[in-house]
């Protein structure tokens, strides 16, 4: 892209190609759109001419027949249940994570005692105990919520502890020397400092909750989303399968985006 020394600057009557190139160089988002469009075109061509219809449907058909996914008996109900499971699991993770995070982060003794245990649990692959959740909580929403909480709670605890620990001791000392009570210190020093890490933890927690709930949903193939994905897979119906996956992916991206926006909004005060 850099100009070689000695090249003449382009004359004003450039060719159309050069003008297009310049337009795209100034707008990376347009080039990004072209890349996405090309991916869809490649998918369309592959599905129409090269891949067997029982494995892959072209995007045009997937998106125009999206309504048939919702018309399938039971799918809207299953999506509704999944969404409510994600919501409940997320709220529970935030509530429990906040309480445990504050309890562990604000006390040095409990921090030293329990933080290694929490980090160890965070590092274990929870997917291995998924069958236990089904065994204890059944195949209904309870097991999915519990599994979602088990994935969402640890990132929230860890970020809240880190946020509480990162407060400069000088701030607390100066508040104390000015005669602040414990509650005042919490309300006016610790709480405002916690907010950015709280929202960062919520975002990571949401990613975890989505993973946990979807894993449990896919694992239980006799009810809910998992039933329909395995139904569409086994009946070789890629159109509906891709439609259902797109709806779920859109749901996941939307939920992530809401939490990410909230995080950006509430950590602004620290940046300026």
């Amino acid at each position: 892209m850099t100009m070689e020394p000695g090249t003449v600057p382009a004359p004003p009557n450039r060719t159309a190609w050069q003008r297009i190139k310049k337009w795209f160089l100034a707008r990376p988002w347009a080039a990004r759109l072209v890349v996405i469009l090309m991916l869809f075109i490649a998918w369309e061509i592959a599905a129409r001419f090269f891949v067997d219809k029982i494995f892959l449907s072209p995007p045009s058909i997937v998106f125009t027949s999206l309504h048939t996914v919702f018309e399938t008996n039971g799918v809207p109900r299953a999506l509704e249940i999944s969404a409510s499971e994600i919501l409940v699991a997320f709220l529970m993770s935030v509530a429990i994570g906040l309480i445990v995070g504050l309890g562990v982060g604000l006390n040095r003794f409990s921090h030293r005692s329990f933080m290694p245990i929490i980090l160890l649990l965070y590092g274990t692959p929870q997917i291995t105990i998924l069958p236990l959740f089904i065994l204890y909580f059944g195949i209904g929403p309870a097991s999915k919520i519990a599994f979602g909480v088990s994935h969402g709670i640890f990132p929230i605890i860890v970020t809240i502890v880190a946020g509480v620990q990162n407060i400069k001791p000088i701030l607390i000392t100066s508040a104390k020397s000015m005669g602040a009570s414990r509650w005042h210190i919490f309300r006016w020093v610790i709480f405002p400092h916690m907010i950015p890490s709280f929202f960062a933890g919520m975002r990571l927690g949401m990613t975890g909750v989505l993973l946990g709930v979807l894993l449990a949903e896919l694992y239980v193939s006799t009810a809910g989303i998992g039933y329909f994905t395995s139904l569409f897979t086994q009946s070789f119906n890629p159109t509906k399968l891709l439609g259902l996956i797109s709806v779920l992916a859109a749901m996941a991206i939307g939920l992530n985006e809401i939490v990410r926006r909230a995080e950006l909004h509430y950590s602004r005060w620290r940046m300026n």
Partner: protein
Amino acid sequence: MSASGDRRRASLASRGMQFAFVVILVGVWYLGTTYGGISPILLPNPVAVYHELMDVLATGEYVSDLRITLMELVTAFSISSTVGVTLGYLISRSQYSIRVFEPLFAGMYSVPVILFLPLYILFFGLGPASKIALGVTTSFFPIILNTIAGFGYVDRIFVLSARSMGASEFQLFRWVLLPAALPIILTGLRIGFTVALLSILGSETIASLAGLGHRIVQLGEGMDTARMFAYIAFVVVIALILNMAVSTLEARAKRP
């Protein structure tokens, strides 16, 4: 002197607390299952779990499942690290392509990849291929994003000074770009490895014919809970060892 003694006493108290926590947990588990009348199908006795674990280790029946899971992991990680680092390097060559591609990959990264498992099962069947595909998809994004971040944001002053001292393209890469980018790429590779392991275990749990995740589900469905607990403990230890090994490798490679 007394301050360090205080600290030692405090850390000793924390160790004691951790020890007490584990002992109470196992004690309640033991007493509850021995005298509390909890069904062994729901929660097996820890002693029974220990015996099953010893049996699993002694008979070596874990070997075939472990081999399959590790084979899937190694294949998936080799593919995603090769493709991710190469593609990331090529993209990082120009600021323009970084600005085109990086938001694209970052956006895709927020989709839970596990959603594609039914699709991969449709494409690749229930065998190892669908697990490898899922492992590749999961680990590809952290690896390529970190590679772009590593190579793309090397301080320009280093590149300029190397150029002005007459460094060749290869010398520039070997002595400036690579050392500057390596720590960030290694972090990406570690994250990629961890999530590949998780997604492979997960996909084995959801739908498969073999592997450690499959074994756990099979025992759970057969209500052989004690042996399932033994396998869970086995897999957790394997996963912790693998993660620790990768973290250690990362830390060692980062040391200048």
